[in-house]
């Protein structure tokens, strides 16, 4: 839905504005200690205004800008929350009650969806809304899941296998299926999605907590620095024999505190976290927690299924290798005959290759002249039996795995030639899959099937390697084939003939070494590995077990997405680091604005003249009032100015750690020191021009 539903930005904006005022409640403020200090400072200055009766233009402006600082931070958070809220609301609307056809003793009974219990069976036909989450136990159907995924093309769901799960609220568009209910109301997938969207942003992640500690300590440090300043200043005032020349009124001190404490990052921290989850959501990935997003940025090893992620997914016939004494055309013809009834992509590709290379047209073969032998797990062969016709003898053609065809041929006292064995090995070694074709006891040759590696994937893996992420390919292929594809795709490692236990074992082994693992999976047998992985992305098409085991859910069921998930995680962390650095670097300029304003008259030799510390006014700000105001205004406005960056995230480029650090340090560290000097000066000029400050 996230791709489909157009958010109305004006509505989001208005809602965020309203929320930023609602969030002034102490209950919300106390959650963010840095902003809480600003909030307390705002109240203090307000009380000071009325209590001390010093309601002059300067004090009123300081007070207003302190409140604005609070509001801006609230606004940032509200903006980030808005999109998720809207998403959850949309999903909630879908949770309407529908009527279900419950099967009771073979009879359909109409009941409300809310009355369904686990293991109830319900029937859905074309046009029905599926009443509850469940598993198809009978039939096959196309289902429109656009309500959840945003993808308009219907998907096929069928009983048995890994595509049996259906989601309540989606619509059956063809055929009839019987569903076993797996979740009761309130516990459904939609409910889970809603709670994921809403709950993920409630808890602070470990890194957020750690960063918060650093920010809070800086805040405490600056409070100490500012509150010890009046005694130091008054000591000097007395030593200079002056009176009331240092500005240490409550609004000035509070303004200094607010300028120094890391309000920029403090105000944007929760927005950054929420925005990270939101960016995932816009790519149709739901995270159960912010922690999972954070872990994604940290991932050291990606476990990727070969099929669909690294290769296009289907093996294609690319060559025919005839046995000695057999014409290549005969092999192609036999292979085509054996594959005519084979509707798998591999089978189709053999027919197409024979047609394209040797001009062999597809022939219509019908029973009883031809009997097709389907592939079974026991025989691991398929083929065709042709009855004798047109003066030709009966034929039995088989194609299949090396070992099975060999057994079949040798069972008929045929010879399995060394050349064939060599060809098989050659294909295997090059990463292909050999299919041996035999007619009766005679081996005709070998078909080469090859996995086609996705374009650009090698470069992607090279980038990941630069980021320090290793990729491990998981495949059911034999080690030879796996090694060849691994080399072609540029993965770092592979697990051949992988069983679910192998995956789990590998994850545990890597975690023992302190590594963080991400994997994506769909089948029931993936569930343990998904649960064990630090980032387990379940595919939406997957089984219920897999969907519950992961800590992320990919609604598009696109395995390549894992790479994007890692990038979003990294972006989230980088944004945090960059804004923290920026926030601290900003303080340098604020000292040069506020300290000369506070102490510029100290040790002046003439009345109204400047003392030595006025030299610190390197920006030549107009007056003490305009200097302090400019710093406070800059400090408040920078929060608003950085909201887009917080929501969008710092740009991520897959480069080495040192290069990224150097670039970001230059932009946010050095830039963070220089930039405010310019803007504080500009604000100062503006304030004086409109007579808001002397």
């Amino acid at each position, binding site marked *: 839905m996230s791709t489909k539903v157009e958010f109305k930005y004006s509505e989001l904006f208005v809602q965020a504005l309203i929320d930023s005022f609602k969030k002034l409640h102490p209950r919300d403020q106390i959650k963010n200690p840095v902003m809480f200090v600003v909030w307390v400072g705002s109240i203090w200055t307000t009380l000071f205004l009325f209590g001390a009766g010093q309601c002059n233009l300067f004090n009123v402006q300081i007070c207003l800008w302190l409140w604005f600082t609070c509001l801006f931070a609230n606004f940032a958070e509200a903006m980030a929350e808005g999109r998720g809220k809207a998403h959850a609301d949309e999903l909630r609307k879908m949770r309407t009650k529908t009527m279900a056809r419950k099967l009771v003793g073979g009879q359909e009974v109409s009941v409300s969806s809310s009355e369904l219990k686990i293991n109830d069976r319900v029937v859905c036909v074309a046009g029905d809304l599926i009443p509850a989450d469940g598993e198809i136990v009978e039939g096959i159907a196309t289902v429109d899941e656009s309500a959840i995924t945003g993808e308009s093309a219907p998907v096929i769901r069928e009983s048995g296998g890994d595509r049996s799960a259906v989601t309540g609220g989606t619509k059956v568009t063809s055929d009839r299926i019987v569903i076993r209910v797996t979740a009761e109301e309130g516990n459904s997938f939609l409910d889970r999605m809603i709670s994921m969207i809403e709950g993920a942003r409630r808890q602070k992640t470990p890194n957020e907590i*750690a960063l918060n500690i650093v920010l809070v300590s800086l805040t405490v440090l600056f409070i100490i*620095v500012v509150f010890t300043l009046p005694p130091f200043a008054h000591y000097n005032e007395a030593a200079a024999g002056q009176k009331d020349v240092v500005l240490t009124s409550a609004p000035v001190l509070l303004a200094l505190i607010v300028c120094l404490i890391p309000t920029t990052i403090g105000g944007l921290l929760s927005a950054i976290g929420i925005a990270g989850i939101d960016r995932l959501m816009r790519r149709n990935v739901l995270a159960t927690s912010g922690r999972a997003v954070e872990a994604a940025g940290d991932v050291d090893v990606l476990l990727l299924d070969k099929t669909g992620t690294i290769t296009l997914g289907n093996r294609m016939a690319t060559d025919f290798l005839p046995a000695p004494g057999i014409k290549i055309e005969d092999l192609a013809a036999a292979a085509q005959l054996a594959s005519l009834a084979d509707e798998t992509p591999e089978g189709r590709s053999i027919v197409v290759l024979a047609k394209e290379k040797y001009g062999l047209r597809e022939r219509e073969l019908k029973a009883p002249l031809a009997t097709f032998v389907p592939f079974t797990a026991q025989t691991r062969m398929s083929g065709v039996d042709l009855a004798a016709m047109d003066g030709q003898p009966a034929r039995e053609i088989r194609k299949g795995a090396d070992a099975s065809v060999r057994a079949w041929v040798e069972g008929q006292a045929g010879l399995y030639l060394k050349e064939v064995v060599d060809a098989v090995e050659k294909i295997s070694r090059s990463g292909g899959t050999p299919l041996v074709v035999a007619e009766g006891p005679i081996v005709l040759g070998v078909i080469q099937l090859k996995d086609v590696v996705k374009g650009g994937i090698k470069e992607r893996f090279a980038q990941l390697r630069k980021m320090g992420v290793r990729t491990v390919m998981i495949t059911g292929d034999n080690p030879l084939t796996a090694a060849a594809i691994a080399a072609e795709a540029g993965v770092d490692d592979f697990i051949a003939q992988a069983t679910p236990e192998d995956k789990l074992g590998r994850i545990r082994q890597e975690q023992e070494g*302190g590594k963080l693992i991400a994997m994506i999976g769909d089948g029931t047998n993936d569930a343990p590995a998904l649960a064990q992985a630090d980032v387990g992305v379940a595919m939406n098409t997957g089984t219920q077990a897999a969907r519950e085991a992961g800590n992320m859910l990919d609604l598009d069921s696109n395995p390549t997405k894992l790479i994007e998930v890692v990038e979003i995680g990294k972006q989230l962390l980088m944004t945090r680091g960059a804004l923290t650095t920026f926030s601290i*670097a900003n303080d340098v300029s604020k000292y040069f604005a506020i300290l000369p304003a506070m102490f510029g008259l100290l040790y002046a030799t003439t009345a109204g003249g400047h003392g*030595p510390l006025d030299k610190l006014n390197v920006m030549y700000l107009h007056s003490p009032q305009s200097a302090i105001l400019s710093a406070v205004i800059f400090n408040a406005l920078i929060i608003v100015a950085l909201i887009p960056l917080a929501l969008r995230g710092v740009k991520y480029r897959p480069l080495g*750690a040192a290069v990224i650090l150097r670039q970001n340090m230059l932009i946010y560290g050095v830039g963070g020191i220089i930039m405010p000097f310019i803007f504080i000066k500009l604000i100062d000029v503006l304030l004086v021009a409109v007579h808001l400050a002397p």
Partner: protein
Amino acid sequence: MNTNEILQIVLFFGLGIALTPLLGRFMFKVFTGEKTFLHPVLLPIEKLVYKLTGINPGEEMSWVKYLWAGVIMTTVGFASLMVLLMTQKWLPYNPQGLDNLSWHLAFNTAWSFTCNADWQSYTGETTMSYFSQTLGLSVHQFLSGAGGIAVLVAIGRALKRASVKTIGNFWVDLTRGTLYLVIPLSVLWAIPLMWQGVPQTWQPYVTANLVEPYTAQVPKVDDKGNPVTTSVPKTDDKGQPVKGADGKPVMVDQPVMVDQKVETQLIPIGPVASFESCKQIFTNGGGWYGVNSAHPLENPTPLSDFWEMLAIIVVPMAQVYMFGLLIGNKKHAWCLFAVMLALYVGSFGVAWWAESQPNPVVHNISPLLEGKEQRFGVMNSVLWGVSCTAIDNGSVNSMHDSWMPLAGLMPMWNILIGEIMFGGVGCGVYCMLFHVLIAVFLAGLMIGRTPEYLGKKLGAWEATWAVIGVLGPNAACLIPAAFSCVLPAGLSSLTNAGPHGFSEILYAFGEAANNNGSAFAGLNANVPWYDVTLGLAIIIGRFAPIAAALAIAGRMAAKKTVEASPGTLPLYGWTFGLTLTGVIIIVAALTFFPALCLGPIVEHGLMLSGRVF
């Protein structure tokens, strides 16, 4: 700046750097129990120590236990030293019959020496008996130095460990540090000092006849020893008599002065050389004499000056290398070394430049020698002053308070920054570690990973303790300094007015909170207010970082180690070095810039316009 000075500087830093890998490897071997050339002699003694004290050298401690051992050692040391100082009159080896110390001076001194700060609110030769100096103070100079290194060793060891709950045995580390390092190095360094004329004797002070007797004016006292005063009219700044409300001149008491002919001088001596070498090598800095290494018997010649200055840097420099060996990452250690050296040399450069500037207040005379020793000159005074503050030593060979304001700013800056430019034995590196962790925290995030240090993930625990390690000393400096600026008890001890007086207060609390022990001079600190508050600041400055460092070590040892990958933050190279330097400077500058503005910086501005106080 002349060739001679440049040569001395190059020789000084060159020797320090050259000795670093040699001594560093030796220290590494000592603490990991590997055989060294000293083992044939000292191993039996080490074993005997364990036997006599009942220490089981195989026993491993958790970080809490390790910390407790350190706390117990320091507290017991404090209590016994305080008792000793308050009863020295009745104890042996007191040929001058010096009196017992007041409770507050004993409190201050006992904490100061057991915590490796060696701040002295007293003048050694007129306060401390030989017994107090040697068995009291010197013993703690040894132990506190070894204790600091022990903590560093525990951290280095912990960082190398993985999935282990313990970080080593404090008593073993302490024993090894004392036996193989502290005692041999102290002996080695004392011999050339004795050759240069530093006394090493238990004889009483000697009386010398002056070549040129002189007459001094001294306050007249009556029979009971009370000063005699007379009443005179009070005058204002311009010398005009001040009149009271009734029109009559206001009268004030003034001491009556009498002439006294001085023909002899009492020269304090004692076992100075042995005291001196340990004071210098293990970043203690508490001198035998009140004026510390400016005293002609504590530091008689330019050669002894060079030797003592070299003593300041050798162990602190070598400990960085030892740390690198302990964590198994020498590149990182050299990067830390380079950052420390850059800050150190930079600080020296600024101070030397500022001290070579003409001072308009004293008619631009050059060189400025007030408060300095003629035999050392400007460069060696500045180099010493910068070294002993960069390196938590705190000894002086000139009076920092006499330096130009901006030159005086540099020792203050070195102290306030946390003494991490090699820093104190042990604490220099583990205090640096807090800054490293903060830098890694920011830099780690910026490369898109949750921060990790040497393969260990940094979480809330590490962040908390790292900031406690930084925040503790900073708070312990600023808060009592603020009170001292307000309370009469604080203000009455100042001997200088204006921003200079404030600098004295800030310096005193800065050095206490960072366990430096050097003095800006000019502050009369032996009053209950300063003795107690400085003592407390010393405790916080010692134990906040130690507790933080050990807490981090404990958690680090328990964590798994992740191998480095191209995605991990490299802990060496320009990028990391500059990031770390930036973090150190910005954190310290943001904390202390306002205070420094009101001290040396404003004083500099005033001096340029010819105003003094």
